[in-house]
């Protein structure tokens, strides 16, 4: 690392923060156009800064003695808990954080640029750009966190930015409900995260990532011998932390918020719910990977299976959805499942750590092509004013640029050589092959399904029947098409980045190669998926209907997303609201407060009864006095004579 000073990196999150404050406080005084330009400009600066940092880190100063260094560029104490435990705020640079810096700033910059065109004429554009800046700030703070509590802080902040942006169209009840759902589901997951942090920090006595994840260090091996319910305490801690990650990355069964989150503006879906925030869970697991590997293997296995299951589950649902954004949302779930699975099957160190590398690789390429898909979907929605693919068709003539870039993205996600999706997916399949044959088989199926549902979407929207539109659809303005083209180029060429020489589990570069024995069948499966989709959807025909009729139950369950939402509704509405909250409210009003009122009432009644004694009549007082005196006298005489 030498004498190079990375402390300028602190500006990377701070610039969006300032842009948030300026737009949030004074945005309503600016012209609409200015707010967009201001926000985009801020992002442009940090995009350049991040690329510069990546260059300096990966190619100039980062690699020392064959290992990428972990560089703490800046670190200040923010809050002191105990002598040992304190929250710092700082900047940590290592291969994964630098990679994430590039991912976040690239996508965010593109989305900002795109939004200038997309949000034109909407009410509250300044609010929109302010929230986007807030999100970018939080996400960058999360990425460069030096300790797990800093990460948790920004984790909550990205959660709230996501809440605000999903509910951007706040006058629409469905958007309000979706934003609420997203926040509460992820909050529930964060409860697990928080408790996990409490356990982890109690065992190891630190929040600091470098101390925690040093394989030779002492912290990582603590707590392995203390058992609790069949697993070590460390495993429990890591599982709970993973629960937080699963919430944010929408892993089954905490995935229900993500499809609904599509109520937000489409660029937001591209940025937050496809490329950056939803992969925070993957990033979290990658960040703590040494602990998972050395002290919590069972947790890692669970991650692999959760990831594998989610990828299959979501891919099946994606095949039947009609809302194009929902198809993409389930596709995102499925792809994140891939990344989780890759981490779960990964080992530690050079070739054993293939899964780790593949996961980050896929995170990178997925961010590019999924952002592209969402932005393309945005351009489509912008043109036809509908989300539903059964109201679309034949759009390739009207939207040539969108069509071309969308096709590239579809081919990339289907994993065709030499597009970037091929390389990263191939590494994941290779990693799974060496660890677990069952998961490997599942991933092959998912690869085929992915190609199928993406090309179903593609053919229905761009080919299919020639639909009559109210207005002739127009190609999007250049502020929207430039990001599309940029991301398309990135999707095509990102695969040639030698990831195995940059981002590895132990920060030591290794030679990566393509295992053609695995790659060729996977391309074949992809092509098969595309072929089936082409037969079924390129021209209007009755195959889809016959297919749905044949697989009646599967189709219905898939279409209804396996009724998971209904189960959640039952738990929240019926059990929590009706059987807990309402009785508590009743108990409080009638039992607790009733007792208090009862005491007061009793006092009232008693005083009312004895009030009559104080009548003010002398004769009555005299009578009572003499009677009493006589009675007492009798008692005393009785006692005395006894």
């Amino acid at each position, binding site marked *: 690392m030498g004498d190079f000073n990375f402390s300028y990196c602190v500006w990377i999150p701070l610039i969006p923060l300032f842009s948030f404050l300026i737009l949030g406080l004074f945005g309503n005084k600016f012209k609409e156009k200015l707010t967009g330009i201001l926000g985009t400009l801020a992002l442009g600066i940090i995009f350049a800064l991040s690329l510069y940092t990546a260059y300096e880190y990966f190619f100039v100063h980062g690699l020392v003695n064959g290992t990428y260094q972990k560089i703490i560029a800046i670190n200040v104490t923010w809050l002191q808990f105990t002598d040992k435990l304190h929250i710092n705020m700082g900047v940590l640079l290592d291969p994964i954080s630098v990679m994430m810096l590039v991912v976040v700033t690239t996508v965010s910059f593109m989305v900002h640029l795109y939004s200038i065109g997309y949000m034109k004429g909407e009410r509250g554009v300044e609010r929109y750009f302010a929230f986007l800046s807030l999100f970018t700030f939080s996400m960058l703070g999360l990425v460069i966190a030096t300790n797990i509590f800093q990460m948790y802080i920004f984790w909550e*902040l990205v959660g709230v930015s996501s809440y605000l942006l999903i509910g951007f169209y*706040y006058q629409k009840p469905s958007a309000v409900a979706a934003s609420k759902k997203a926040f509460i589901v992820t909050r529930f997951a964060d*409860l697990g995260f928080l408790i996990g942090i409490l356990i982890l920090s109690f065992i190891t006595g630190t929040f600091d990532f470098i101390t925690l994840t040093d394989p030779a260090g002492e912290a990582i091996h603590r707590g392995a011998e203390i058992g609790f319910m069949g697993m070590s305490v460390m495993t429990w801690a890591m599982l709970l932390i993973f629960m937080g990650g699963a919430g944010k990355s929408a892993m089954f069964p905490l995935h229900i918020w993500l499809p609904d989150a599509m109520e937000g503006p489409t660029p937001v879906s591209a940025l937050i719910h496809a490329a950056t925030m939803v992969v925070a869970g993957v990033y979290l697991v990658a960040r703590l990977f040494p602990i998972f590997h050395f002290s919590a293997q069972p947790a890692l296995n669970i991650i692999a299976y959760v990831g594998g299951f989610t990828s299959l589950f979501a891919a099946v649902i994606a095949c039947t959805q009609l809302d194009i954004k929902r198809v993409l949302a389930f596709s995102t779930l499925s792809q994140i499942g891939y990344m989780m699975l890759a981490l779960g099957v990964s080992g530690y160190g050079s070739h054993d750590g293939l899964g780790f590398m593949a996961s980050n690789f896929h995170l990178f390429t997925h961010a590019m092509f999924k952002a592209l898909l969402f932005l393309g979907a945005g351009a489509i929605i912008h043109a036809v004013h509908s989300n539903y693919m059964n109201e679309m068709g034949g759009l390739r003539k009207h939207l040539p640029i969108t069509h071309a870039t969308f096709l590239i993205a579809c081919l990339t996600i289907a994993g065709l050589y030499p597009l970037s999706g091929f390389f990263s997916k191939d590494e994941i399949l290779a990693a799974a092959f060496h660890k677990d044959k069952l998961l490997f088989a599942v991933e092959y199926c998912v690869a085929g399904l992915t190609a199928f549902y993406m090309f179903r979407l593609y053919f229905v929207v761009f080919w299919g029947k020639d639909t009559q539109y109210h207005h002739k659809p127009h190609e999007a303005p250049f502020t929207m098409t430039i990001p599309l083209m940029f991301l398309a180029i990135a999707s095509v060429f990102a695969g040639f980045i030698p990831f195995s020489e940059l981002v590895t589990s132990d920060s030591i570069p290794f030679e990566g190669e393509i295992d053609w024995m695995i790659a060729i069948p996977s391309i074949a499966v992809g092509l098969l998926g595309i072929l089936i989709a082409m037969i079924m959807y390129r021209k209007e025909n009755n195959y889809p209907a016959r297919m749905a009729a044949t697989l009646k139950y599967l189709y219905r369950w898939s279409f209804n997303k396996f009724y998971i939402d209904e189960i959640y509704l039952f738990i929240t509405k019926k059990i*929590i609201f009706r059987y807990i909250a309402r009785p508590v*409210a009743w108990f409080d009003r009638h039992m607790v*407060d009733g007792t208090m009122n009862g005491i007061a009432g009793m006092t009232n009644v008693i005083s009312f009864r004895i009030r009559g004694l104080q009548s003010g009549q002398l004769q009555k007082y005299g009578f009572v006095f003499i009677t009493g005196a006589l009675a007492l006298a009798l008692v005393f005489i009785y006692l005395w004579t006894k």
Partner: protein
Amino acid sequence: MDYLTYFIIVPLLTVFGIVLCKNDKQVKWTAVIGMSIQLILAAALVFMYLAERKAGNMAEFLFYHDYMWYPALNIRYTIGVDGISVAMVALTSVIIFTGIFASWEVTNLHKEFFISLILLATGVFGFFICVDLFTMFLFYELAVIPMYLLIGIWGTGPKEYSAMKLTLMLMGGSALLLVGLIGLYFNSAPGGGALTFNLIEISKVQIPMEAQRFLFPMTFVGFGILGALFPLHTWSPDGHSSAPTAVSMLHAGVLLKLGRYGAFRVAMFLMPEAAHELGWIFLILTTISVVYGAFGAIQQKDLKYINAYSSVSHCGLVLFALLMMNKTAMDGAIMQMVSHGIMTALFFALIGMIYGRTHTRIIDEMGGLMRVIPFLGVAYVIAGLASLGLPGFSGFVAEMTIFVGSWQHVDTFHRVATIIACSSIVITAVYILRVIGILLLGPVRFDWYNQLTDARWYEKLSVGFLIVCIAGIGIAPLWLSNMIGDSLVPVVEKLNMISFIR
């Protein structure tokens, strides 16, 4: 004259000034000037305190002064502050300052209203700076009486009922408290010598265990009623919902804290053995109240009731953390008192302002207000996010300090209690977002909403100031945490010494 006494003199002079005022405008501005001076005094006190500490003055109470008042019983006017009371004084001055602006639109009997309000504040300030238990009690009683009048006269809804309920329950608490304090007095010199009410003197002696067993519940419950301890909290929802805005603010913001502060300073500090022995009972009660309050809030329809139950939950967390009896958790507890104080004052101020426009507090009868009154809407969202513990606001800092502190106990009982308390962060999110969703978001409910005016300058000032305070603490918490933490050292040492002996 010593510096701290100004905190009593200035409000009293303000009251006197208000008596001489001729019209509504003069009354308000006199109150504003008086409470601004008070705010400046409090800010100066914080800086002076930090400077003294930095200069190496390690005395337990700074700015300490002692005047004999009633020699026959050795009752003294003894004042002094440590980091905790400084934080409380600052909190009180912020809330009364913003409270004045929030009651700008009081229509009837303004003179009497502001006199009572400022008298109430005087009692609170006096309570926090006193070190002598008897004078402390005196100031406490001084705060309760104006409260009755304020709710009974300027309140809304079933105000007589609420005022009576509140006063009777608090008086019941006072009765227990008085017994407790007198008991402490008679045990203050077990080795012979002059009996005393002085907190510092009593803390130096060992109160016999039999007496502690009796006196600890007396004082703890006595103060606990004021601090809305489950199941003696029911005065609070009714009281809040009937009280005028500024009173709700002061009440939830400061008076609840007064109970917590007393429970900490008198019951736990003076009787650590009993705190250790009986603490678990109260720990169970407070753990219940944290979750119970949150669940209670989910189903309420009246904005003020929601906030009152939310206060039960948040304030439950304060006592919960105090009973954890380690430095981190207690530090969090005091920060939660400050944080919740400002936050809830903000809530009540906003509720008052919304009520002033829509003339209802039932959330089902409103909707889509964000569009028509954006300033108040945004402020309400900020208050809500702060309340559900968003980082960047004070609530997060306090809650996390509490949870990390509580987790330092290894036994299962404390662990389970901590997990239950942690779960409140989810339930809080549920009821906060429910209110925001129904009240502010969605389509504009009625056409006549479009004629509503957004916040006026005094409302903006009041709300903006409170938001700045919450965000300030949330962004830079270290100074506050350290200021409180240093003053906790003697208390924690005393509590730990006991557990060590055992």
